[in-house]
């Protein structure tokens, strides 16, 4: 019994040390985001702030380097991109699984494997294409890209989901004279609300965290998504005002933290979807 207790104590000891290693960097970031620049350079980083400067730091991160507009842009990109891709993917999934278009599996593979290549394969042609079509550095261009990149995964998931809906539902609706689009909207869509919510959360997170395409497809702070703004904030100060940079990091992370802690169950469901993501 004693040996077992000792073993449990050791395990908990290791867990607590690990938890500290995982939590301390975040704690340090928060307390240093609250420091004034002079306080930060005069005292060790692990000291508590001598005056509470967080709101001033957040304000200067929000205003300078366009982190504020990046934040608002990314909410728009995330909501519009995720919603549009779910609509487009549900149409495709309905066509493939329910209407059984000829060559449906091939079409599915073309849609699904369009994005399995490394993202670096897409950046140069998209940059050139966006310049030609005057989509470069425009909000429309970014929404279009974020929609397109989310479509394959949404199609994969919704295709799996629609194939579990009993075909009798559609047959009954057809007998009543409903059109296919109507059946998708009032039979299949309501049945897949929970899957769509998980997908929305998942794609919103992807779009929110994107840096690469933000810096490839846009250049001005008023169009940049939030992570592009945050990374240019780093370059802007070159380390001269770490408290402001850390405040910027807090701003950029805050929606994800709120989403994670309020919708944790959806995240876990989303993860079991990721497992199937290539």
């Amino acid at each position, binding site marked *: 019994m004693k040996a077992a207790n000792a073993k449990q104590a050791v395990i908990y000891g290791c*867990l607590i040390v690990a*938890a500290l290693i*995982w939590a301390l*960097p*975040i704690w340090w970031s928060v307390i*240093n985001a609250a420091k004034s620049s002079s306080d930060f350079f005069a005292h*060790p*980083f692990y000291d508590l702030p001598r005056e509470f400067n967080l709101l001033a730091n957040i304000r200067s991160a929000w205003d300078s380097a366009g982190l504020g507009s990046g934040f608002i842009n990314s909410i728009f990109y995330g909501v519009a991109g995720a919603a549009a891709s779910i609509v*487009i993917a549900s*149409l*495709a999934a309905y*066509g493939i699984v329910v*209407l059984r*278009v*000829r060559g449906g*599996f091939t079409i599915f*593979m*073309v849609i699904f494997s*369009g*994005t399995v*290549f*490394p*993202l*670096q*394969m*897409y*950046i*140069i*042609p*998209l940059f*050139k*294409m966006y310049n030609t079509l005057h989509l470069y550095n425009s909000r429309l261009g970014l929404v279009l*890209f974020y*929609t*397109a*990149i989310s*479509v394959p995964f949404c199609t*994969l998931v919704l295709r799996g989901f629609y194939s579990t809906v009993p075909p009798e539902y559609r047959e009954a609706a057809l007998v009543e004279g409903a059109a*296919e689009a109507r059946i*998708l909207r009032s039979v299949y869509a309501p049945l897949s609300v929970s899957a769509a919510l998980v997908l929305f959360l998942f794609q919103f997170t992807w779009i929110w*965290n994107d*840096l*690469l395409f933000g810096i*490839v497809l846009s250049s001005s702070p008023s169009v940049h998504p939030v*992570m592009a703004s*945050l*990374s240019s904030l*780093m370059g802007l100060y070159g*380390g001269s005002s770490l408290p402001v940079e*850390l405040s*910027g*990091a807090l701003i950029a*992370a805050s929606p*994800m933290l709120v989403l*994670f802690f309020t919708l944790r169950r959806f995240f*876990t469901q989303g*993860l079991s979807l*990721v*497992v199937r993501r*290539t």
Partner: protein
Amino acid sequence: MKTLSLPRVVSAQAAGDARRAARRSGPARRGRKLSSYLFVLPALILVVGMFWYSIVVTVWISFTDSNGLTTPKFVGLSNYRALVQDPALSTNIYNTLIWAVAMIVLPVGLGLVAAVILKKRRGRTVFQSVFYLPYAIGFVTTGVIWSFLFGTNGISELFGSLGIKSLGNVQWLNDVPLNTYSMIIASTWQVVGVDMLLFFVGLDTIDPQIVEAANLDGAVGWKLFRHITLPSLTPMTRVIVAISIVNALQAFNLIWVMTQGGPYGSSSTFALWTYQQSFQYYKMGYGAAIAVVLTIFVLLASIGYLRRSLQEAR
């Protein structure tokens, strides 16, 4: 089956309806089929127009001297020949491979350990949230935080004041190859939580009766882990390893924020190299060639997994 209990008249009528419907359905069904392509069209246009188009064009650009200004000229294999002779190639291959190996061993291993230890343990929710927190804040934010911690006013100061002099003056992000290892630490810190949650999903699929039977046979602790838990987790482990390799081979965000591949390209990887050649030096032909080589690596690394998931999709 239900029609059997209906009066004969009704069921005969229904049969007649069905026959008439069958006669009608020839041309009608074809009409419906054609319009049903409208459903798949938007997705097809987006994916083919943006992604399949890009893949073809990137391969083509890699055979040209495209620089974003003048009209590209076909130059054959000369970008690839230049790539083989580039002194930066070995650094990029080395760093890319280190990232791939480290991101399989560290986060997957630690995630597995955390999941097995925390499963059915009191306080699981608290520990699980703490380990997952870094994943929730995102790559770029993680990069900002660890740039601060690995910078001059960061953990070196802590080690110094703790009396660990040898770690007090370390240039975490400037010394080679330490800078790559430092970023791997930051990346591990970030992704362990998600691997842990994935292993929880895997652990939930293990039949408790099998565990009970193994317990009766005297398999507990390490023995149970080695002979029951680990083999049962194999499918999940395979998925996690595949995702980790593919992600690590494309490592970009964290490196871009923390070192931009520097100093002097010492911490660059293929993904970063492509971006820099294409968008900082505007050598897009060269950048495209690097991207093509990276793609070959990624496809080779994930071919087994891809084949499996294709079979499952079918």
